[in-house]
């Protein structure tokens, strides 16, 4: 079992070597070696950029299928609010939940309510927070991993509150096992997600401690069967449907949504990996200490931009926004009572049991003296490279290639631009050889 199992794998049969993934990866975690596309485990942050970029659908998320339901005596499906975002005001969550249940689950759980609770818990956390500022929202697993890998100094800025899906799965297992007389492991909890990184919270949680989720199903996989099931679902009334929506939880699907109705001063919403990197650079320099909370989503527009969604991210973003506006106009806030959440917060129901820890990238060498020599060697190699970042060697940039050579993971001759030089050298060697044996003259 590897140290960091990841959320994606490359299907060698489908990969035709176009190397789009190589170029889009924000942490330079992909290499092509001997014709095979590899993901460097310690660098990958599970953002899913490679899934979206691959023109051959060769980067495959490791999600589960409905077939896995049979392992359990009681199954509960927990959809991310982003599933609702695929439909917006046209089909409301109450109907979607009923439709989902028909796909073979024993029970559906409205995660938006738990998301709303978690927003309120974060509001409580901010009120009493005395540590480093700004805090950084932990709802996006790729952002958490980006910090662990590239900003180890900032791990103590990450919000130490459990993710709603983990909290929900834990509570479901506890209550249902009691009520149904089952063992917790006989109850299957399945998270329907827009995010390829979700499965790693099961196999490789960002903090220690077990996950209570049993499986992860992609929105893309559920969408078709759900649409078919929805045709025969009836709901009481549109108004009742609206009244069942937790506005805070619904907001989790989009950038800017999870704190929309909270009283938090100075929240910074960021989305898209390259913008997040700039923002984290600023946090690291101490420039954003006046900001209380940074809410960052690696996918543009938030989870509606996730690689496993169906609808265009801008359209689903708009759908959520219009739904939120409707709820605001109608003064509907079907979230739990603030006092109740505060009381649970005080009992530390929301707090993570283990802190986030850094997962820094390997350095050139453990010994600083040797690392300095290797860094110099890397620059020498880089100076001799064409700097076109063609990717033919299998590394994303000439600079990354130079590092691979220094670390012994690639050979300088893997660079195609070294070929003419090598041919020239060989030509010289051959003519010298021919001269030496006196065979230089034409017959």
């Amino acid at each position, binding site marked *: 079992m590897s140290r960091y199992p990841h959320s994606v794998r490359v299907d060698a049969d489908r990969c035709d070597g176009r190397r789009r993934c190589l170029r889009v990866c924000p942490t330079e975690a992909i290499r092509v070696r001997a014709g095979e596309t590899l993901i460097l485990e310690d660098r990958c942050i599970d953002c899913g950029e490679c899934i979206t970029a691959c023109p051959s659908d060769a980067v495959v998320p490791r999600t589960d299928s409905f077939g896995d339901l049979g392992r359990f005596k009681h199954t509960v499906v927990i959809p991310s609010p982003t599933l609702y975002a695929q439909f917006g005001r046209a089909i409301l969550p109450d109907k979607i939940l009923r439709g989902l249940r028909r796909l073979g689950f024993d029970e559906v759980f409205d995660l938006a309510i738990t998301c709303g609770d978690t927003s309120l818990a974060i509001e409580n956390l901010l009120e009493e927070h005395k540590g480093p500022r700004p805090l950084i929202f932990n709802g996006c697993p790729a952002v958490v991993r980006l910090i662990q890998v590239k900003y*180890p*100094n900032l791990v103590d800025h990450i919000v130490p509150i459990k993710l709603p899906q983990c909290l929900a799965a834990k509570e479901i297992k506890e209550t249902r096992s009691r009520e149904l007389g089952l063992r917790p492991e006989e109850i299957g909890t399945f998270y329907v997600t827009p995010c390829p990184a979700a499965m790693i919270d099961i196999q490789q949680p960002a903090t220690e401690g077990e996950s209570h989720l049993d499986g992860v199903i992609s929105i893309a996989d559920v969408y078709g069967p759900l649409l078919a099931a929805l045709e025969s679902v009836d709901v009481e009334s549109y108004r009742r449907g609206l009244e069942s929506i937790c506005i805070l939880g619904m907001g989790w699907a989009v950038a800017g949504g999870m704190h929309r109705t909270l009283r938090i001063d100075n929240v910074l919403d960021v989305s898209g990996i390259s913008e997040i990197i700039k923002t984290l*650079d600023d946090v*690291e*320099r*101490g*420039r954003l200490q006046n900001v209380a909370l940074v809410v960052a989503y690696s996918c543009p527009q938030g989870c509606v931009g996730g690689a496993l969604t169906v609808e265009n991210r801008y359209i689903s973003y708009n759908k959520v926004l219009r739904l939120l506006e409707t709820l605001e106009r109608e003064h509907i806030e079907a979230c739990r009572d603030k006092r109740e959440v505060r009381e649970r917060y005080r009992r530390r129901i929301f707090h993570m049991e283990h802190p986030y820890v*850094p997962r*820094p*990238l390997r*350095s*050139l*060498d*453990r*010994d*600083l*003296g040797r*690392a*300095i*020599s290797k*860094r*110099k060697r890397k620059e020498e190699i880089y100076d001799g490279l064409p700097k076109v970042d063609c990717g033919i060697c299998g590394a994303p940039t000439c600079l990354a290639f130079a*590092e691979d050579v220094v670390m012994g993971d690639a050979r300088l001759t893997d660079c195609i631009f070294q070929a003419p030089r090598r041919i020239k050298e060989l030509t010289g060697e051959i003519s010298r050889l021919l001269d030496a044996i006196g065979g230089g003259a034409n017959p």
Partner: protein
Amino acid sequence: MQGFSRTFSIAGQDFSKGGSASLEIKEILREMGVDPALVRRVAIAAYEAEMNVVMYAERGEMSVDVDPQTIRLSLDDEGPGIEDIERAMQEGYSTATAEMQQMGFGAGMGLPNIKKNADLFELASTFGKGTSYRITFHVAPAGQP
């Protein structure tokens, strides 16, 4: 022979590039496996110094020198210089314009922040000509090999 050295040019008023040299320095140190807390201190000092050039000077050059014992930042700029160094080192003292403050700079924390993060900070300036910074960090705590 043993040390690593690299020089960056910094252009005055180039706010879009401002901070890129200190970012690169941070990445170099990270790759070398320098302790993350020390990397952060160097990066903050480098950034404050770099932004001082961007905000006040015509141009400048910043070098980083790394050997197994010390990390040194040296910055020399051509610019207005600092009239009263003692005052400039006080927290909250700033000659930044309202525009710079609008951008989140010029809170009068720059030089004090460099001093706070450095093990040794020498600042020299000729008024009307330029400023030079020598900022030193010890890799291992003093007294340790």
